[in-house]
Every structure is written in structure tokens, then in C-alpha cells.
């Protein structure tokens, strides 16, 4: 079953970490939001898209052994919560490293990777992952 529109709609956010900044309280949100959870109705119409740098550090992480079917080829893989330089936290995979290199506080940078594919014939869903900053 193809889910092209659902994926396509989020492309810029997943390719380039485009979040939204509240024009009222100036807080940057990622994933993007239509309403600021602090300013609520005051923020309606005041949310502006903003691209993040992709730089951040690991706030927490885990090595996943029993992973999702789409990620079976990559087990064990690292899932981390990353605190971005601009403030928001992002959930993502850390790649191109051995799990032993990953620590809380490790600096990471966003990289564009294949995240999922809709089988052999369907579309390739690209998005951000992170690599350790060397």
C-alpha cells in the first residue's frame, strides 16, 4: 500500500529539519507545529518555518536489538534523543559508528539517509539521521 502523500507532505521537515518558530514567544519547535503549546490561540498565524543547522548533542540513547521490520538490516541500531543547537529535541538514529562510541553529550550532525522504503517497488523515504561529529 502506497503512502506517498503522507510522506511527501513532510519532505522539507525530514530532509532539512525545518521546524516552526512562534512569532509570539520566539520558541522554535521541531517537529513543526501549527499552534504554539505555550501561546496557544495567540500564536495562530504567527508560526514561521525555520531550518535548523543539524548540529546537536546526545541527550539520551539506546541500542535497539529488537527493532522494527524496516530496520532489521541495521540491528543493533542506535536511537537517540538529540538536543539540537537551536533548542528542540529530535528523536533519530545515530549511524556510521559502533554503539560503544555513543555517549550522553556526544556531539552529532544531521545527515540525509534512506529511512524506509515502500518495498522493492515503492518509493524511498529519505530523512535525517545523525553521525558523530569528528
Amino acid at each position, binding site marked *: 500500500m502506497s503512502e506517498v502523500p503522507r510522506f511527501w507532505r513532510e519532505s522539507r521537515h525530514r530532509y532539512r529539519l525545518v521546524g516552526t518558530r512562534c512569532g509570539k514567544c520566539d520558541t522554535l519547535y521541531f517537529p513543526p507545529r501549527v499552534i504554539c503549546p505555550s501561546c496557544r490561540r495567540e500564536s495562530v498565524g504567527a508560526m514561521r518555518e525555520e531550518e535548523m543547522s543539524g548540529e546537536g548533542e546526545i541527550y539520551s540513547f*539506546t541500542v535497539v536489538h529488537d527493532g*522494527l521490520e524496516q*530496520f532489521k538490516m541495521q540491528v543493533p541500531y542506535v536511537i537517540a534523543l538529540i538536543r539540537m543547537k537551536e533548542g528542540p529535541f529530535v528523536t533519530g538514529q545515530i549511524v556510521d559508528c559502533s554503539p560503544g562510541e555513543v555517549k550522553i553529550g556526544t556531539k552529532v550532525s544531521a545527515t540525509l539517509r534512506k529511512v524506509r522504503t515502500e518495498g522493492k517497488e515503492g518509493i524511498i523515504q529519505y530523512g535525517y539521521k545523525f553521525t558523530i561529529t569528528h
Partner: protein
Amino acid sequence: MRDVYILGVGTTKFGELWDSSLRELASEAGLKAIMDAGIYAEDVDALYGANTSGGQFVDQEQIAALIADYSGITELNIPSIRIEAGSASGGAALMQAYLAVKSGQYNTVVVGGVEKMTDVPSEVANEIIGGSLDAEWETFFGATECSIAALIARRHEYEGSAKRENYAVFPVISHKHASMNETSHFRNAIKIEDVINASPVAEPLTVFDNAPISDGASALVISSDQKKIRESPNPIRIKSSSAANDFLSLHDRKKIDQFKAVAKSTKDALRLANLDLGKIDAFELHDSYSIATLIQVEEIFGKQGVRMTEGNDFYYNSSSPLNVSGGLKAHGNPLGTSGLYQAVEATLQLRGKAGERQVKDPRNFLIHNMGGLGTTSVSTIIGVD
């Protein structure tokens, strides 16, 4: 406002129930609850059904209608509504049923929960369980629910708030209690080393930190009908039920190792029941993951909660009995059913009919059912007058 009582409870065994279908499990639990209450279908004004993911596990939506149909009550045209709130579906359905009766709209209601999880392979079940996370910003990128629990555990340890043993102990407690409960999924006792050294699922969590994939159904009959309450040999009162929510995803919370919704729903439930924590004799908490139990304990007991994990306080025969049913970890975790089995256990205990694992003379139980990891919280206080 009217008082609401539990007149009857029923449950199936929990576990890998290969011979039973979703509809069979649901009607078995419902029928047992009705018979336990000593009432007939004609006495039922409404049915609330809890189910988390039947659409994915067995391709079935409209589950409340199916349950009513196969419980043989459809000719009475009783309203039957499904409640979904992730793995807090059971608690949420109990709360809605309680409010419906308390409001006076209905006198007597059956509230039941069912989940049939083992008709799909365990990998598929794990994907479906991940449906409680944010599909676009967590699951899409490879996060499983257990991996999110692991992020909490890692950070909690890093901040020095707890050690591995402080949460590895909860599966041990649950297995001990489950060994004394004949409807349990698992009845074997385990040691803390077994938890820590088992196969990792998402480090630091192992298979023993995770509640299992189980089939099962539980149901209760609740009522404000004065005549029925008088005739009931052992009516147990629902003293309050309260819910609260937090951000769906960990990445949107200011502190990832706090469950603010748990603190709020519990505080509200105590206030509505006009009780303080000291009056609660036993607790059924949502131990889907060992670390989640610890965070709930911390939200309810404060910092002293961590110290309590180091002694025997949480066993059935001690000061703060916890998950005397065997919990989700060992009694089993058929998602949408979990909150209702917690209420069944509290009722059996308050009736003094819990057998070998009976808590001594309990007067009030606090049960807490949770959707995701602290996203949806439903706290219910059940006690004797």
C-alpha cells in the same frame, strides 16, 4: 451525586490463548462479570468496550458492537461504545462508564476490555504497540516503544536519580505475585539478575523489563441502582476516577524522566475521593516497562519511592503492596484490557477473595493505567465504604 459500585467482575486467563478469538474472549469476561453481579442482560443500560488496536491485530473495528452482538444482547439494542486511549483504553473506559453512571444517565453499565494480540507474529505485534508513539516523528525513524522507555531509563540513571536495580526489581515483584494468581500469563518466580542479564531489547532494557504480548479480556458491572447494591453480597465502591495527559512524544517534554500526567491524575483522584496517600493500602501501577513503573512510583511517592525499591515494601504482605495481581509484566498485558484487570484485582482484594496473594484488610486501592509512556494517565480509586 450518586455513588457508583462494582457489583460484578469477570476475567479470562491471560496469555497465549491459541484457541480463543477476540469475540470469544470478550463475551467470556462479560458473561462472568454479569453472573458474578447476579444480574441479567435486561438490567444493563449500556456497554463500554476498551480495545487498543483490534483494527491492526485482527482487522476488526466497531469492536463494542461485535462484543454486544456475540454476548447475545443485541436484540435489546443496548448502546455499545468503544473507548480507545492507547494502552490506557481500559482505564479510560472504566472512567467513562463511571461518569455515565454517576451522572444518572445510566443505572447499570458493563465495561469490558479485550485485546487479541497473538494472532500476528511478535514482530508485527511490536510494530502495532509502537502505534502509541508519534508515527511521523518517532516510529518513522525506527523508534520502538521499548526504545523510548530505554531513553528514559538511560537519562534517569545518568542524572543519578536511580540505579539499574531500582527498576529491575519491579519485574521480580510482579512475577512473585503472578505466581500466586491462577489467571496469570507467567507463574514463574525470577531474580533481579535474571532481569539485568536477559537478552537486550533496547539497552539497558532486556526482555524481562518488558511486559509480554498477551491475549485476554476482563469486565466489570458497575451500578448506582440502590436495590442491586443492597442485594449485592459485596459491593465495592469506585471512589473517584481522573485522567490527565502529557505530550505524545518524549522529545516535546521538558523533562523526559518525569510523568507529569501521572502526578496530576493521581492527585486529582485522591482529592475527588477525599483521601490522602496514606489512606491507600495497595497500588496497581502500569508496569509495561520496569522503568515506567519506577517513574510512576516516584511521581506518587516522591523521592522516597526510589528507596522503597531497595526493601520489601512493595510485596503483597508488606507496607505498600504493588501490583499484587502480577502486574502487566507477569499477569499479562493485553493492551486495552490492562486497566480493567487492575480494577478486577482491586475488587477481588477488597472483597478479601484474592487467595494466596491477599493483601491484609485493604480499604482502598489506587489503580493507574497509562497510554504510551506517561502520555495518557487514568487514576482510579476503588475501596470499601
